[in-house]
Structure formats: C-alpha cells, structure tokens
C-alpha cells in the first residue's frame, strides 16, 4: 500500500496519465487510432525529441538552460549527413558527431560555468553561431541521398512495432534514470541545481557536475542529429529549428522545473512523446488543419496548467494537514519535537 502510494506520488506518473488520457481522447474521437501500431508510431517518431529532451533535462536539473541544442542537432546532422553521403564509415561519422557534441558542450559549459555568463543568453548566442555555421558548411544546400542501409535501419522494428531506436532509447533512459537516482554521483545533478552553494559546501564537485551536464546535453543533441539523418534521410539547413523550445516544453510536461533541482529523465522522455505525437494525433482528430496550432497550444496549456494546479494544491494541502495535525489534541507528535530537558 505504501509503495503504491509512493508510486502514485511519483511526478512522472502524472505525465504518463496525461499521455494516456491524450491517447484515449484521440482514440474516442477516432477508434482507428487505438491500433497498437499507431501508438507505437507515436513513440517511434519521438526518438529524436526524446534524446534532445533527456539531454536538456540534465541542464535543467542543474538550474541552467541550453537553447543551442536545435542548431547543434542541425549542424551535426549536416556534418554526419555529408560524411555518410560521401561514403565515409558510419563509425567515423558517429565519432565525429560525438566530438562535435563534446566541443559544443564544453563551449557552453565554459561560458556558463567558468565565465559565469547567464546561460540563456550565452547559449542563445551559440545557437546563432551554430545556425550560421550550418549555412556556411552546407552553402545552404540540402544533404541528400544518404546510404539506404543507414536509412533503412530506422525502420527496423525490435519488439512488435517498436523501432530499434526507440528500444535503445528506452534502455538508455532507464539506465540514466537509475544512475541519477541510485548512484551518489547521479544525485549530484539535482543537488547542484537545487542549491549550488550548498552543494559546494558539502564538497560536491559543482563545477564538474555542471560541465558534465552541458556536455551530456550537447552530446545527446548530436546523437539526435545522427538519428535524425537515419530517420529522415535528408538534412536541410533548418533541421532542428525550434527543437530547443520543444525539448524544454517536453521537460516541463514531464515535471522538470526550470528553476532546477526537480524532476526525472523518465518524465522528460514522456514529455517528449507528448510533444512529438501531437502532430500525429492531430491527423486522427480529424479537425481542419487550420486548427493545428490552436489545438497544439491548448493541449500544452491545459496539461501544464492542470499539472501545476494539482502540484500546488497538494503542496498546500500537505502543509495545511501538517499544521492542523499539530493543533489537534490527540494528533501524533509533531515532526520536530524537542525531547524534554531536565529543567522543565
């Protein structure tokens, strides 16, 4: 019973409930949607978003932000795309992608952690530079005709109609979640975001943790770029445009606070599925496409508002319950009770 209660309290669960509710509502509007292949398609199509959102989660944990992930993804996709198109090996391409991610992560980390620049501005600047570099690198042209085998890999299914990529992502998210919650170092991310000064004071490697968060975020986006190439098969210079905002929204949908210190990667992964499946769901809802943006906005607003109200209510209620319990005569002892001293 206790366990169930605790599980119900888990923040990710509300996001999952929202996701399921969304599926059920769409299913009610159009029963065709309830086919498992559709549901798994929603998950499959969220792979890139999930990667970016999970990476973003790290940066949000530490209480910072990274709005350069979109351009990072685009740049990596362009570089990897050209390499593969020109017949380089996949392994080399992936290594290059990771290197790009690490470099960008280190630059962001340097600006924010070493130089102390506000993260929003700094990464905004980096975003502009990277976006410009994409044009410079590709001359504005598209990268097309990626090798078929590489593209085909995206449509290989592993379990039922769930793609290999998504299975890998699930595994990755679970591993990251376990590392974050079960290991000492894993907790450092949220701790640093919760109270950086306090973290330093108890000897946590604040600087390293922050740098690491930025590097992880950037590398995830870069890997997202590789998978983008594989899934989509062509790279436009606009690839990844606006992903940063969607990733942030996904994280918030999943219960991560922009103030830092709160949330889990599972939440952000679920949020990413919500964000990316909206355009899939809209097709099944059957509304005129003129409503697309309005409905997307409404879904987003409704979820975050309801969620925030619920969270706030429960916080207030907890506090009130505790306070009322103190006053009532035969209530259990207050949580802090000084043992009676001899003097009394």
């Amino acid at each position, binding site marked *: 019973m206790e366990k169930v209660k605790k599980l119900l309290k888990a923040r990710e669960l509300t996001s999952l409930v929202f996701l399921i509710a969304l599926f059920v509502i769409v299913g009610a509007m159009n029963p065709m949607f309830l086919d498992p292949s559709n549901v798994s398609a929603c998950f499959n199509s969220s792979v890139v978003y999930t990667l970016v959102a999970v990476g973003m989660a790290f940066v949000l944990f530490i209480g910072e932000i990274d709005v350069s992930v979109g351009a990072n993804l685009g740049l990596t996709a362009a570089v990897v795309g050209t390499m593969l198109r020109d017949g380089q090996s996949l392994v080399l391409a992936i290594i290059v992608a990771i290197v790009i991610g690490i470099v960008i992560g280190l630059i962001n980390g340097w600006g924010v952690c070493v130089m102390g620049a506000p993260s929003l501005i700094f990464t905004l600047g980096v975003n*502009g530079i*990277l976006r410009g570099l994409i044009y410079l690198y590709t001359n*504005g042209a598209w990268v097309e005709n990626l090798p078929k085998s590489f593209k085909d890999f995206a449509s290989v299914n592993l379990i039922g109609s769930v793609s290999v990529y998504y299975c890998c992502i699930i595994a990755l998210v679970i591993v990251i979640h376990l590392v974050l919650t079960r290991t000492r170092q894993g907790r450092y991310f949220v701790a640093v975001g919760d109270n950086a000064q306090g973290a330093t004071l108890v000897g946590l490697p604040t600087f390293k943790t922050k740098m690491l968060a930025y590097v992880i975020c950037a590398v995830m986006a870069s890997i997202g770029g590789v998978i983008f190439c594989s899934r989509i098969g062509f790279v436009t210079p606009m690839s990844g445009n606006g992903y940063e905002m969607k990733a*942030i*929204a996904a994280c918030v949908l999943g219960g991560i606070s922009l103030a830092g210190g709160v949330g889990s990667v599972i939440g952000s992964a679920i949020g990413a599925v919500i964000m990316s499946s909206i355009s899939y769901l809209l097709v099944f809802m059957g509304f005129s496409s*003129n409503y697309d943006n309005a409905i997307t906005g409404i879904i987003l607003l409704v979820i975050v508002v309801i969620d925030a*109200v619920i969270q706030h209510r429960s916080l207030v209620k907890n506090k009130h319950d505790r306070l009322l319990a103190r006053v009532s005569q035969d209530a259990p002892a207050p949580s802090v009770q000084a043992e009676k001293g001899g003097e009394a």
Partner: protein
Amino acid sequence: MDKVKKLLSRGQASWNLILIALLVLEFVIFGAANPKFLRPQLLFTAVNDNLAVFMLALFVTLVMCTGGIDIQVASLVGLTSIIIGVAWQDFGFSIWGACALATVVVCLCGALSGFFIAYCRVQAMVITLGGSFLYSGLALLVSTLSSTASYESISGFPDDFKFIANYQVGGVIPFQILIYAAMLVVAFILLHKTKYGRKIILTGVNQSAAEYSGIHTRRVIMSTYVLSALAAAIAGIVLTAYLGTAKSDLGGDLTMDIITAVVLGGTLSTGGKGSVIGTALASLAIALLRFGLPLCFKIGTQYLDIPVGILLVAVIVGRSAATNTGIVPWLRSLFARKGSSKASAQ
C-alpha cells in the same frame, strides 16, 4: 584595466555606456568602411525595418524583470494584424475600430497567459510557448473568417492608416519612430520612475519578500504580460501599416531577436534587474550590426547569425568576467583560486 573593471561592475549605468561605446564603434567602423552607412535616410531605414523588435523588446524587458519570459508576443503581432484586416475588410469596422478591437483581443490573450503564469504558477517559458502556438493558431482561424484566403494577405488599407508608418516628420524622421520613442519614454518611466516599476523589480528579485511587503505580486506579474501584449498590438498595427498588408503570420519569427535585445541590454534573465534604456541601445546595436555588415563588408545576410551570435557571446562573457557579484562568479572564484593562492605564497 582596473578602471574598466570597476566601471563594468558598477551596474546598469556603466553597462549602458558599454552599449553606447559599441554603437559608436559600429558607426566608426561601418562609417569608415562605407560612408553611405552614415546617411540618416539609411539609418532610419535600418531602424524602420526592425521597429517591431524594438517595440516588443521594450515591454518584454518588464516581463523579464519579474523573472518571466515572453515568447508569445511575436505571434500576437500576427494576431493583431489579421484581426485588423478581417474586421476592416469583412466585418465593416472602420480601420481605427478594427485596431481597437485587435488591441482589446490581444490584451486579453496576454492577460490569459499572464493569469496562468501568475496565478497558476506555471513556468512562463512553457505557458508563452503554448501561447505562441495558440495565438498563431487563433490568427489563422481568424483569417479563415475572411473572404480573402488565409494565404493571401489583406491589403488596400486607407491612406490615413498607412500614414502612421509612412509619414515622415519634417521629411526625414518616420512617424513610426516617433511612436517608438513615445513607447520608449512610457516604458522607461513605468519601469524606472514609478511605484509600479519598483514593484516589478522587487517581485522579480524575491516574490515571497515582495508579498510580505504588501505587493500584489501576482497582479504585477500578470500585468506585465498584458503590457507586453499591448506593445505587440501597437507593433502589429504599425507593422501592418508599414507593410500595407494584414496577414496572420506577420512577425512570427521575431522571438529570438527580441530576447536577444533584452538580455544584451542588461536585463537579468532571472529577474530583478533590467533597463529599458539598455534594451533600446542593445536592439539598436544589433539592428545596425545586421544592417552594416552586409552593407559595408558584403557579408551574406544568411550568415548574419554568426556575427550577432559572436557579439552576444563576447559581450556577455566580457561582462561576466568583469563583474564579481552573485553566485556564479563566487563559484568561479573557487576555480580561479589556484593561481591567486600561488601568488600569495610568494
């Protein structure tokens, strides 16, 4: 060097000086490279073309001072524009009536988002992201009410409407720049000279403490979103007049430019500090950079993101390196210590 450091750490006034220095530098370099740059006519053109960003950034500054962010204003510009067009063309409103209607609707939109942020305590970035979808979607829906297809723009506005954007006072100064100047003054007085502005700032520093000081912080927060929506309405009207067409996606891509101008102007993205003058100077500096680089150095317009990004990064890093207050520099001092303790050991 030490003097520069001290100056930099002296807060907003000195920051404004830096921005002015940046502007002067731009004038000198661009002017030297291509004297055409210094023609007032051209400079006004550069400003005119960015005026929507200028106007919006002013009031987004207020929002960011409360610790929020507003990424929906850009979509409200489009909503304003299309409401004006549809109301005027299809519903028989007078052009000014249509403007009034658009202003009211857009302010309500701002109020709605502000309400969610202030009273439901949802993070501003997400609410306004949702808002930007919702309001651009609304704009599209409004456009379907018109006999003109959504993909075509509504044009043919009366001359006295286009006047607000195209009339040139004394034959040189575009009237819309005067509108901007008026907004600048209003925003400046609001933020820096009134009790309301003080409330905005204090709310941004510490909302709880502001509550204990008797400030209705939620009202204050919500009102800033209404104000920025109002600015979006004005910008939408001016832009519609300037382009002579109403379309639902007008101005939809200004968000990043606005945020860039505000933060470069010295407003803390965490709230509690900000400057309208700084925002104005920063937006001008960026506009001139974007105008001057292609003009004087033949840099392709599609690559302009790079120099603007570099400017942003360089300026911000320079500033952070020079000031030493706050948590982050404190953290930084931890890592810079190695050197200093070595020095002291000698």
